[in-house]
């Protein structure tokens, strides 16, 4: 009887640990709570202490989005400016999102690698455009919370996007213009990441986007 109780408690703990791992682990936090985040972008986590017997509501409450805010050195509101300042523009798909890194000095970040599906802009006629591009995105998942920049949501695995890049040193790329240099691309539909950048009408094609 006693062993049954211990076994039962063991299963309960296992379930709890599994739930915690699903929610807190890696980018799972961001993925699992994507729907909730759509309703409440800026939620104040009530506490970061872990209670001994966490329940689902507690976990959900802790895995909230913490918004950071930036001043942008590059920020484009016209396609001609964006193209002028970008070496290449690609349609790409998120292949990997690395672990969240907390540097000694500086905000959290993740390294994102996208596979290049299509080259749509090549300002300088670069011959050796890579098949995949790795870049840094500010933010990540830590302590059960998703940290991201206001107006610049975290990129995720499988997500397809149009991204303009600057090669700032050989083989090293950054997204040109922060959130204004990135567009969601789903089933042929282009949607700007931020409302404050280049305006894209419904039904705009990739070719039309480049002519804006």
């Amino acid at each position: 009887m006693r062993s049954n109780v211990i076994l039962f408690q063991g299963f309960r703990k296992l379930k709890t640990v599994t739930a915690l791992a699903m929610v807190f682990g890696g980018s799972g936090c961001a993925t699992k709570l994507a729907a909730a985040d759509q309703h409440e972008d800026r939620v104040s986590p009530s506490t970061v202490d872990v209670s001994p017997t966490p329940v689902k509501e507690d976990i959900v409450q802790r895995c909230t989005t913490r918004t950071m805010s930036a001043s942008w050195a590059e920020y484009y509101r016209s396609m001609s400016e964006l193209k002028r300042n970008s070496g290449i523009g690609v349609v790409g798909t998120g292949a990997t999102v690395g672990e969240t890194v907390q540097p000694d000095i500086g905000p959290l970040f993740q390294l994102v690698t996208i596979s290049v599906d299509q080259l749509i802009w090549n300002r300088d006629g670069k011959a050796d455009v890579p098949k995949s591009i790795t870049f840094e995105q500010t933010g990540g998942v830590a302590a059960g919370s998703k940290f991201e920049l206001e107006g610049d949501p975290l990129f995720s695995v499988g997500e397809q996007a149009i991204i303009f890049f600057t090669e700032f040193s050989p083989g090293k790329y950054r997204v040109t213009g922060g959130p204004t240099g990135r567009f969601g691309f789903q089933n042929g539909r282009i949607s700007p990441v931020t409302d404050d950048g280049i305006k894209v009408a419904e039904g705009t094609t990739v070719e039309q986007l480049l002519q804006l």
Partner: protein
Amino acid sequence: MNITNVFKATKQVGRRYKQLPILLLVAACMVSVLSSSAQAYNLWGFRWFTTPTSGCCLNRSVKSFTMSSFLTTDAWYAWTNGIAWWSHNNNASINVNMSYASSSTVKVWEVQNPNVTWDGLSSPTFMGGGQFATMDMFLNTTWAGGYSWQKRLSVTSHEVGHMLGLDHRSGACTLMQPDSFTRWDSCGVNSATADDINGVNSLY
């Protein structure tokens, strides 16, 4: 002047007066739009919960580091001036001090990161009830290092605006304009405008 000309002139005056109500209506609309945009600051949704010491204001000290260890001279002056401007502005209900306190809930930093295109960043943590718990503010000298001191000041003052609880505001020449080119190069703003001050005063 013959009678035909007099008739025409009278008709024109009549037309003008007919348009007067329309002109007045348009003018009233413009005044309404302009006055509403003057009150259009955006708030982040969080504020510092502090016990007022003088009956009104926010009092907050900011931890900095010595020039020799973490902050370069340019970054030091940018943060010092960005904070001092807010502190010395009698129109804003705040008192922010730069100090060397061993611990503080607000810290300023300097980073050099060419992988990103932000030149300044504010990273808060929160307590319950819409309150900031801590705030780390970063100046990215990969970009800001090449700015004039006035433009660099526009970045640090902007970040201090976030620290006080202001959110971005696009489409107007205010300190909380999200990009430094528009904020400084186009608008010439590197300190809080009346709109920014109204926003802070609405919080504290």
